[in-house]
């Protein structure tokens, strides 16, 4: 019984890591812009595809060993994916912001951008799935009846590291200070000489870059890629961010693991049919008692 619980805790940590990584991107952008970037789940999908193309390119045409490919994939995927995020911001959100459009229109634009990414992918690469090539040799370790792989551990460690890095950036650096300032007052801050657009671009770089990293890790863990893979996990990660308190980095991190944990534990101890029903009922109850989420405050600086 004990090993069953520990096994499920490992499962939950690994699955929650993906929610946490994606939720961090939602929360960063929301914290700075109060914009729910609904295209974020699809940026994650694009990240997985970019990782796929980078990895196959290096593996097949250059024939480099897998670990080196992985070492190259991580920065390349993050850079290319953050370019996608910045492009979205540049061509879709910024013009609206400059015209002073209401937030609602920007959110709907984000939803459309997500659909555009999905269907552009469908149109360009076709509907058949892509199989992500194995980059590292996976070892299955078995300790006292509990099985885990080196990849699972890597995913969990990465999620924690990303959280620590983002937390450090936001709370300890000048850029982070500027982000918090913009979140506090978007109109006064540019008057103090802080370049608003640059800081927003940096926010999108960070959010999309880590979505790309999540895409790469996801593709390695679940090596079947399809254009719609980002939609559902993106929505769920958004819910996780809201439960954690959207706009707060600790909230997104905690919310991601909370949702992953609830989903896995429900399946482990109840009929698996009830998973989403119970998982989201629990989240609904949490939100009923704490509408701003765990770390959210009704209206103040967010991030």
């Amino acid at each position, binding site marked *: 019984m004990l090993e*069953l619980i520990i*096994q*499920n805790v490992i*499962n*939950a940590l*690994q*699955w929650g890591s993906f929610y946490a990584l994606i939720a961090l991107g939602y929360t960063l952008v929301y914290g700075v812009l109060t914009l729910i970037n609904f295209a974020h789940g699809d940026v994650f999908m694009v990240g997985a595809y970019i990782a796929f193309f980078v990895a196959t390119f290096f593996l097949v045409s250059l024939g480099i060993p897998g670990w080196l490919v992985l070492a190259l994939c991580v920065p390349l995927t993050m850079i290319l994916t953050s370019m996608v995020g910045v492009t979205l911001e540049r061509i879709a959100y910024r013009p609206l912001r400059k015209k002073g459009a209401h937030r609602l229109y920007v959110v709907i634009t984000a939803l459309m951008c997500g659909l555009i990414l999905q269907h552009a992918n*469908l149109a360009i690469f*076709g*509907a*058949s*799935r892509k*199989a992500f090539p*194995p980059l590292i040799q*996976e070892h*299955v370790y*078995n300790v006292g009846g509990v*099985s885990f*792989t080196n990849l*699972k551990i890597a995913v969990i460690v990465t999620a924690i590291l990303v959280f620590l890095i983002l937390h450090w950036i936001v709370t300890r650096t000048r850029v982070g200070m500027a982000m918090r300032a913009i979140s506090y007052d978007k109109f006064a801050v540019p008057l103090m000489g802080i370049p608003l657009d640059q800081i927003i671009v940096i926010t999108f770089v960070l959010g999309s870059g880590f979505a790309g990293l999540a895409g790469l890790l*996801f593709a390695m863990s*679940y*090596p*079947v890629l*399809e254009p*719609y*893979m980002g939609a*559902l*996990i993106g929505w769920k990660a958004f819910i996780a961010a809201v439960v954690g308190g959207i706009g707060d980095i600790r909230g997104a991190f905690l919310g991601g693991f909370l949702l992953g944990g609830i*989903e*896995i*534990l*429900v*399946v*482990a101890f109840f*009929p*698996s*049919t009830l*998973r*989403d029903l119970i998982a989201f009922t629990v989240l609904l109850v949490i939100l009923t008692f704490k509408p701003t989420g765990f770390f959210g405050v009704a209206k103040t600086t967010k991030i």
Partner: protein
Amino acid sequence: MKKSLLLFVALVLFVLPAVSALAADTIKIGFNISLTGDIPKVGESSKFAAEMLKADINAAGGLEVGGKKYMLDFIYEDNESKAESAVTAMFKLIDRDQVLAVVGPNSSKQAVPAGQIANDNRTVMVSPWSTNPDATLERPWVFRAAFLDPFQGPVAVNFAVKTFNAKTAAVIYDLSNDYSKGLAEIFKQVFEEKMGARSVVAFESHGTRDQDFSAQLTTIINRKPDFIFVPNNYNQVALIVRQARQQGYTGEIMGSDAWGSAELMTLCGDVCKGLHFSTHYAAAGATGATKEFIDRYTATYGYTPDDVAALTWDATNVVLQGIQNTGKLTGRLRADRQAVLDGMKAITSFDGITGSMKFDEEGDPVKCAVVVQISQTGEFEFKESVCP
């Protein structure tokens, strides 16, 4: 002015009948298939097989019905692998495109709802691949080319008991897929009848878009079943088998005919090698007309046709046979559709490339199933044939 009006009237009088006469010389058949969505490869296989058949017949001058040659026109409508889109596609084919008969949808998830539309609108529909009984149940206008899950379930049970010496089993299935759910339930019932109550030690479900099955597999592996039955679509199989191995499961895993896509091995790779599944035909080691079909398909499209391709070939041929049995097409759509239905019912036995079949009163074929093993080279090798 007057002259041009006269010319126009002349055009209407002479050219239009000519156009409609031309239209009467073609037979339109609709294909309600999944070209995008969860199982795009299934739709692609169907389309390729149909294109091959159409090219054959049109090259020979068309299909002969009652001494008159008709050219074939196939209309492919994408159902996006969704139930609701399959219904829309069916309406489009029947009302807008005015097809004589419909082939597809393939998956039971789409064939069950779409069959209702075809039946209500009095148009013959033949599903190549659907195995869920509900697709044709109490629907005189709906037929299929595949065997049924109540037959496939026992095939899997008997094979597992005999080959793996299985006393206990676990099942993981897709809750939102009529096919997967139906087959899982039949399997559980048959297995428990044979091996005693509670011999199915775990019966776990998941959603269509799920990618992580670790919790379900932890439960399954903890109960130590002799084998795991996975009646899922090939895309989920790739993830489930892999994750089961990652959790340290080394035992047998067996699947059903939805595994048999050409894409299974690209997605699943080495971990699926050596596993078994029940299906409609085995490409490796085929003979006669089946081999000829496989060779031509491979030469044209570059990969071995999966069972959907073979079944679409058979299903379309059954429809064409039904059309030929009408003896004569009148050009009046309602009457012709009725005639095609009568023609379909007149088929006593049909020799297809997936085996010979005859239709029972529900429109279901009585035919054999095979169990194949995935070889080390990724081919589906014939293991055993089971007939009703």
